[in-house]
């Protein structure tokens, strides 16, 4: 069995408020995607699932699709719709 990957999850703005938690480390099976990571986040913080349809997702500092495979050390950001200006 191949080793898993450890990533860091970050919640931004209203999502952080909803979870009362900003970031944590998450261990996932090797080959996990952003979607797999999301399910782990929802399992820990069910309130965040309510945002699912409007979530913006990034790996590192680039927007990511749910199909993107996560690598060791990646930082997965969950963001509400942006509101600059």
């Amino acid at each position, binding site marked *: 069995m191949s080793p898993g990957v450890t990533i860091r999850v970050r919640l*931004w*703005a*209203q999502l952080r408020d909803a979870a009362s938690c900003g970031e944590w480390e998450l261990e996932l099976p090797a080959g996990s995607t952003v979607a797999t990571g999301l399910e782990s986040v929802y399992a820990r913080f069910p309130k965040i699932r309510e945002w699912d349809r409007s979530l*913006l997702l*990034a790996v590192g*500092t*680039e*927007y990511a699709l749910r199909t993107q495979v996560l690598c060791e050390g990646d930082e997965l*950001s969950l*963001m*509400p719709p*942006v*509101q*600059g*200006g």
Partner: protein
Amino acid sequence: MTFPPDNPSQIPPPMSSQTELNLSPDPISLSAPVPGHCGAVVEFYGVVRAREGEGEIEAIEYECFEAMARGEFEKLFAEARRQWTLDRIELRHRIGVVRVGEASLWIRIRSAHRAEAFAACQWIIDGMKRKVPIWKRPVGV
């Protein structure tokens, strides 16, 4: 007298409470020097309104994912330069608490002609509101 006047008492009587016209040989102040090949400077301020959503507010607190925001702004600037011929783009966005009446956003674009500068200014602001990770939280609702 420069325009806008440094001394408010020099402002001519307004045409109405909502318009003002000044036809004068006096210089018009520029916010920064403009090179000779540029004929247009578009400058925009986004200002915090007293009313946000359901009620009155005192301020807005802005939060930013800075490393990503810088990258997204750079992409917007590069795409704007691809679409229009622009001499210079400058943008400032405040982070943290910005009180009502203060500017949270400032953008200034220089180009040879006005159409490019107006279009790029609008396009960059629209793009920012879709892509740049900045969020706001009303203060004092």
